[in-house]
């Protein structure tokens, strides 16, 4: 084993105390080693307590009630929106739209912006490393409008092919929708440069930030991105809350997505006038407690510092790649540590990924196995499934050692 400098600026021991679930045993005597934060992160006490406090003290519907609870609930919901704005360095909180998750945010863009702005023969440029959430909405729209979909190819190393990207831009796509960070191989795409190049050919850009916003600083003004979508539950927040950020002129020209209460200014029999941003896109009672919980998650992450979190995860993934490389018959996907976030996907000769995950679970090690909602990328690599370990601010070098030891147990059991 090579010598590793195991350094991190985070006080991980203290951070772990903030996450109650990390203290549990999955079976008597078997502590939980949670390496599945790419699927969903665990939640700190501050988020759990904020939501609990809301339901105990301030629960009411927002925006119209004229009583103390309604005013408190409205203020807390809108304060959460402001926290998101600050976190993203967005110009205005009116550009922060609460959705259910990344998927719904992308669908909002597809159905509202896409249906009104795209027409038959227009090109939408995607990439081969997209999550299904940034593929299927465009398939549905392409079918409906007769769009042509093109894909930036991915190299064997798991990087977007820059030359192919530039060739595809010559086709003059109307939209370039791509992931900031691959949920399978962990590749962090050079979003700022790619957005600038896409803008040069007149394309609108949509960034899938599901894996980036939780893990490193994402500044929408610096990126100059037109749309950004992400989920709260992958960044220490609750499920059921996500965000769509958009440039104001685009959001203003877009028709409403879902119709109902809260998204209207005036309704008569037979007609309505849509509300202003962001309410135009928030039909019906939103996930109020969840939005407030997301605000608490942003407070938590900001207190620790996104740069420190990114540095910590980088140290973890570097260590994990080195340790996993020692294991014979293990094939690791994705680029080197300097080009990726805290995700490692691998396969083992002779053992299906699901069997790896099942045996690891016996040792308390929680990883993911499957195609991770990115079947085209797995087809590209010609494998049905991968095993994926992913890291967050609360993971330790020790846990990676446990992972490695558990993988050796898989090898023993299967005799490979």
């Amino acid at each position, binding site marked *: 084993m090579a010598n590793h400098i195991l350094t991190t600026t985070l006080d991980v021991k203290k951070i772990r105390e903030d996450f109650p679930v990390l203290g549990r045993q999955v079976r008597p005597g078997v502590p939980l080693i949670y390496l599945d934060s790419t699927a969903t992160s665990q939640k700190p006490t501050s988020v759990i307590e904020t939501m609990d406090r809301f339901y105990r003290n301030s629960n009411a519907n927002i925006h119209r009630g004229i009583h103390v609870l309604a005013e408190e609930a409205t203020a807390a919901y809108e304060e959460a929106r402001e926290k998101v704005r600050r976190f993203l360095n967005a110009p205005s909180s009116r550009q922060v739209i609460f959705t259910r998750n990344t998927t719904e945010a992308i669908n909002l863009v597809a159905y509202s912006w896409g249906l009104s702005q795209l027409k038959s023969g227009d090109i939408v440029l995607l990439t081969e490393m997209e999550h299904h959430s940034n593929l299927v909405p465009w398939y549905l729209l392409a079918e409906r409008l007769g769009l042509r979909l093109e894909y930036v190819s991915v190299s064997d190393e798991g990087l977007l092919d820059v030359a192919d990207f530039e060739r595809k831009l010559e086709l003059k796509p109307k939209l370039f929708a791509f992931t900031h960070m691959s949920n399978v191989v962990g590749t962090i795409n050079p979003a700022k440069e790619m957005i600038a190049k896409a803008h040069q050919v007149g394309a609108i850009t949509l960034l899938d930030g599901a894996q980036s916003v939780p893990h490193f600083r994402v500044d929408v003004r610096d990126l100059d991105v037109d749309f950004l979508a992400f989920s709260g539950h992958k960044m220490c927040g609750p499920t059921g809350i996500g965000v769509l950020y958009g440039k104001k002129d685009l959001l203003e020209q877009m028709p409403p997505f879902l119709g109902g209460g809260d998204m209207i200014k005036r309704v008569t029999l037979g007609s309505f006038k849509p509300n202003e941003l962001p309410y135009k896109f928030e039909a019906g009672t939103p996930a109020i407690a969840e939005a407030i919980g997301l605000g608490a998650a942003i407070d938590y992450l900001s207190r620790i510092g996104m740069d420190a979190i990114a540095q910590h995860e980088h140290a973890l993934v570097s260590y994990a790649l080195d340790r996993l490389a020692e294991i014979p018959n293990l094939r690791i996907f994705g680029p080197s540590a300097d080009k990726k976030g805290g995700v490692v996907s691998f396969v083992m000769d*002779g*053992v*299906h*990924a*699901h*069997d790896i995950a*099942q*045996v690891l679970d*016996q*040792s308390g090690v929680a990883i993911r*196995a*499957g*195609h991770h909602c990115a*079947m085209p990328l*797995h087809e590209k690599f010609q494998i*049905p*499934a991968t095993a994926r370990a992913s890291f967050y601010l609360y993971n330790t070098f020790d846990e990676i050692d446990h992972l490695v030891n558990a993988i050796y*147990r898989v090898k023993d*059991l*299967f*005799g490979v």
Partner: protein
Amino acid sequence: MDDFYRELIIDRYKNPQFRGVLDPADISFEDDNPLCGDHIHIDLRVGEDGIVREARFDGKGCAISQASADLLMEKIIGMHLDEVKQISKQDILDMLGIELGPVRLKCALLSLKVLKAGVYGLGEATDDLVEDE
């Protein structure tokens, strides 16, 4: 883990007895488990009397899905098609001899789902074919 990956399952995964293709076959069917990308293809040869004479499966996937398919092929040879239709989720669990959570249950039951869809001559394999309740 020894409970879960009984020797039988590892053994049948690594050394399947009924892996292969029958050409021609009287009944053929195949399907995928979208959760894990498991794929199972089944070929049967059936006598005039409705008795399964030969059975083979092919496919790829986890130890549970492949061992389950191999054991299922062994089980049905010599059975009447009407009996094959009666095989239940519990029969498969008894055959494997393990308890399974909801996710891995899909792996274990994929071969039965494919088998039943083929035997019933259905256009697609659906989960209600293998739900007991």
